């Protein structure tokens, strides 16, 4: 009963619980939280306490003393550490309700990878309930991404969405509010970072951290050869000398470094087109493929997919928030007419 009363003081939320970032969309409003999915845990004897969550914890990654561990509780789009995820969600939910004087108990819609197992979905649901949610609904990420991107999901026409997240890439063909075909590959922004770290170690004999690799990807990363070549100065620990050294990387080198994960995504998209029913494939060929997720911001990724598939590929507006926004819209649909894509399982 008290949860219901507390629910009156809470707003419905759509949460994109991502491997890299967690975004929260407030129903009928906007994105109210966008923070890294990182939690810093401090250990004092046998007792563990949460030292920081989100941006503050992210700054600690790779810079923590012995008694603090910065954890990313989600891996490949699913929960890797249940309790830490619960604490993180609890923190985020209370943060977006900072005006309330009761502990919030909102209805929450969470986006899950389309190929996640029932166990993984159950873990996400329980985690949200443990964090104080009153009711929890689950929606598959590509569906949320398609709604958020503004695709005509309810029409009798095929729409293809490729959502490139931190841990996974979700590909789906949607028609009449249903997913006709979906595929999930465990390649995403994190794999791009790892590929850059590996490339630098192999070719420059230097070790760089994930945060540096991410910065390189954002600043000069490209998925397709571009006329202009970008450069960046990087500092890493030289493995032979053991001291930090500076060196310069260019965008062509990063293109080379990213080849393996990029090819995985290309193959998955081609596979989806092969499996797609012919009528829907014709619709996709006419309208094109829509890219969402943070990975869509990798320079020239749309160009690469265009060249590989021979189809127009477009990047959705504000691709990073498509999933969370789509979840929010789904919540609105849920109240108006029910929505068969949402489930409590």
């Amino acid at each position, binding site marked *: 009963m008290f949860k219901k009363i507390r629910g*009156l003081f809470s707003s419905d939320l759509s949460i994109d619980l991502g491997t*890299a*970032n967690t975004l929260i969309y407030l129903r009928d409003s906007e994105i109210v939280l966008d923070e*890294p999915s990182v939690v810093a845990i401090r250990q004092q004897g046998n007792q563990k306490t949460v030292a920081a969550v989100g941006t503050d914890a992210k700054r600690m990654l790779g810079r923590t003393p012995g008694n603090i561990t910065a954890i990313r509780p989600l891996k490949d789009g699913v929960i890797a550490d249940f309790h830490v995820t*619960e604490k993180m969600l609890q923190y985020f939910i209370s943060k977006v309700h900072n005006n309330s004087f009761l502990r919030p108990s909102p209805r929450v819609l969470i986006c899950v990878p389309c190929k996640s197992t029932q166990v993984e979905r159950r873990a996400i649901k329980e985690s949200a309930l443990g964090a104080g949610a009153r009711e929890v609904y689950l929606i598959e990420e590509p569906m949320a991404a398609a709604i958020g991107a503004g695709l005509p999901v309810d029409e009798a026409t095929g729409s293809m969405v490729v959502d490139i997240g931190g841990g996974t890439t979700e590909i789906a063909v949607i028609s009449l509010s249903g997913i006709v075909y979906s595929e999930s590959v465990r390649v995403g922004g994190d794999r791009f970072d790892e590929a850059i770290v590996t490339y630098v170690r192999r070719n420059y004999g230097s070790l760089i951290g994930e945060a540096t690799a991410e910065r390189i990807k954002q600043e000069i990363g490209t998925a397709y050869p571009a006329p202009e070549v970008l450069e960046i100065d990087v500092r890493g620990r030289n493995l032979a000398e053991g001291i930090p050294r500076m060196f310069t990387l260019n965008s062509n080198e990063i293109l080379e470094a990213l080849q393996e994960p990029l090819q995985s995504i290309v193959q998955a998209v081609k596979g989806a087109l092969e499996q797609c029913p012919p009528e829907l494939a014709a619709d996709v060929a006419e309208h094109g493929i*829509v890219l969402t997720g943070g*990975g869509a911001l990798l320079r020239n990724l749309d160009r690469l997919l265009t060249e590989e598939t021979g189809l127009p590929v*477009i990047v959705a507006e504000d691709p990073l928030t498509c999933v969370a926004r789509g979840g929010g819209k789904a919540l609105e649909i849920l109240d108006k007419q029910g929505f068969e894509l949402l489930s409590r399982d």
Partner: protein
Amino acid sequence: MTDHDLLGDSLSGFENHKLIAARESLGISAGALQRDLKLTSAVFSAIEAGDLDQLGQPVFARGYIRNYCNRVGLDPETFVEQYNAAIGQRPVKRRSAIKSAGSATAGTVMKLNPRRASSLLTLLFRLVIIAALLAGLAFGASQINWPTLGLSGLFGGSEPEEQQSSQALPPLAGESEGLSIPIKTMTQESNEDAVVEAPKAIELPKPAETPDLESKTAAVPVKTEQPKPAEKSEPNEPLTASPVNTSGSDGVTIKFSDVSWLNIKDATGEALFNGLSKKGQDLTIKGKAPFSIVIGRANAVSSVTFDGSTVDLEPHTRKNVARLTLSR
């Protein structure tokens, strides 16, 4: 004569001539760019003619325009804004900083929006609910006879209103703790959560085992709540050993046909008896009138006698719980 001369500007304010001029300045033919963008000829012609209605869904149209602009070296956002203005749609606010999937640099937390139109009404509604709750709790606190809480639940009767209000009390106390400490030590989490959960909070731990009583009460639907006996009394103590004040001159005699909970106080407020009776027992209590009596299971009492006269419990019984005061 160029394509621009042929097509002219769109009436909607979409500067399609700039697109064509940029393409021609790069020496790219329309056919080459169309093949490069993998667009159908209809869509490509619609972009260059500024015929925006032919571009289909806005999500695709914006993408086509962006791709076109990127290829000819124009700022795509300018043309997308023109497109949005032409079709009368508000664009999604794009982030200026480029963030990729692994990135997490923004970390900005915006406060909840300034409340939407209906928020004032919602706020008023919430305030009314809070006021009603507080009033209810205050009223309940003044009315509840505390020792009787959970009594009827034990004997299978329907829950009295006082009991419902008592269920609401523990979670309220837990609430205030939850507000002040959103993140606590991980080792304590399960216990703290249990305090906050309303249904769990009302489940009291069972008191010490009383095998003989349990066997007698097994037939009735026993709920999780147990009567909280006063510290002075022992619920399973024989009736003969019950604390009876013999100093007074008045006396009450109660005959039980079955097990029932009983609480009797004298004029001084002292509990003369507080516990369970046994089946078939006659209980005589002496003290100073008036006696305040609460019988947890009125139908388990065969008779009540005060100063030689029989007392009818019926007018004092509600939901099988009798509350009465006996005086001369």
